[in-house]
């Protein structure tokens, strides 16, 4: 079989391309990466896990991804002896892409790590725990019941910063959860999504359940005893 130079190069590379990189590269000194690097990479790995990531990971789609939503979180005053903090956030700009990147003004009031565990206290007895992922900076718990999926996130503010959210065709509304300003929208997969900041952590509830039920679930999120 004969062919032109491009076809010959293609055959050569397909058959011998494995040896392109010198294997001496495999012998190297382990490098201790900076905290900044590790933090950024944790975020990236976390985003890999989020199911909307395929929507934005291709270069073409990324080109349509515009930073469109900015949440400014300012901290809060101590309201009482109980030290309840009220978070305030606002949205700036318009949504004009299929996704939005959330930017948070990271302050020094929110804990840098998960020091207090929050959980849903709503009756989820019909659901089963499908997966649970947690580390110092975030928790993700997924419950399923038949074709229903419910995902709960508890993020540190720093971890949440830069999250990419599928907001295609979404009508984003400002609302509240237990007195804390919140954001609600129905995404184009039919999931109701609520995000709120209680002054300590940023919570997200995402579920293909009725809106009212999702709000009830959000309201039931409490610090574990």
């Amino acid at each position, binding site marked *: 079989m004969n062919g032109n130079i491009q076809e010959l190069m293609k055959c050569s590379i397909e*058959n011998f*391309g494995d040896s392109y990189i010198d294997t001496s590269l495999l012998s*190297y000194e382990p490098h201790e990466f900076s905290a900044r690097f590790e933090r950024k990479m944790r975020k990236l*790995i976390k985003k890999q896990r989020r199911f909307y990531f395929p929507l934005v990971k291709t270069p073409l789609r990324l080109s349509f991804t515009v930073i469109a939503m900015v949440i400014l979180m300012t901290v809060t005053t101590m309201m009482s002896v109980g030290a309840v903090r009220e978070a305030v956030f606002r949205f700036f700009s318009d949504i004009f892409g299929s996704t939005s990147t959330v930017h948070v003004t990271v302050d020094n009031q929110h804990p840098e790590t998960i020091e207090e565990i929050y959980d849903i206290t709503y009756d989820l007895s019909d659901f089963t725990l499908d997966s649970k992922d947690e580390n110092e900076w975030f928790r993700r718990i997924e419950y399923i019941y038949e074709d229903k999926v419910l995902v709960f996130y508890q993020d540190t503010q720093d971890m949440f910063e830069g999250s990419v959210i599928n907001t295609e065709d979404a009508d984003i509304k400002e609302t509240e959860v237990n007195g804390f300003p919140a954001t609600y929208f129905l995404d184009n*997969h039919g999931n109701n999504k609520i995000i709120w900041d209680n002054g300590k952590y940023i919570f997200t509830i995402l579920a293909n359940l009725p809106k009212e039920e999702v709000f009830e679930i959000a309201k039931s999120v409490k610090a574990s005893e």
Partner: protein
Amino acid sequence: MLGAYLTLIDNESDKKLFEAFYTGYKSMMYNVAFDIIHDVHLAEDAVMNSFFILARNMEKVSDQTMSEVRNFLVVVVRNQAIKIYNKQKDITYCDDALDDVSDNINVVYELENKELQRKVFGYIKELDSSYSDVLMMKYFYGMKTAEIAKSLGLTAEGVHTRLRRATVKIRQKLAEEAMT
């Protein structure tokens, strides 16, 4: 809802792969970048950029073997490091300024001749990596011009120019050998 499930499964698998690549290759990539930039923070930036590029190309590499992914990451991090180095030194590498070269010579080659393939691959490895990396991305990883451009920090025109010049160089090598 099935779509959401499938995406979840897909992504979970991608995530595990991504973490495996990250854990397995980050130090190696750092060394590749550091050898070019000689700056700890800039080398880390090159590694970070490369993992972002990997994240965008998980579909391309998820079927590859670990060593093939390693090679992909070496190519990407090397180019990211060069890009950062050039930026720091304010070096502008303009492919468009290269001499235009014709690639319209119709020579026919025996595609199944393994010795010829081996020889050609040897020539490809001898090329400057700015050319051979583009060839690898195109023919080994099956990437499109826009994907190569994004991964290596080039323009689409730059990718085409390098492919064209690489092709001419390989053809010249083959012609020179035929003369001897």
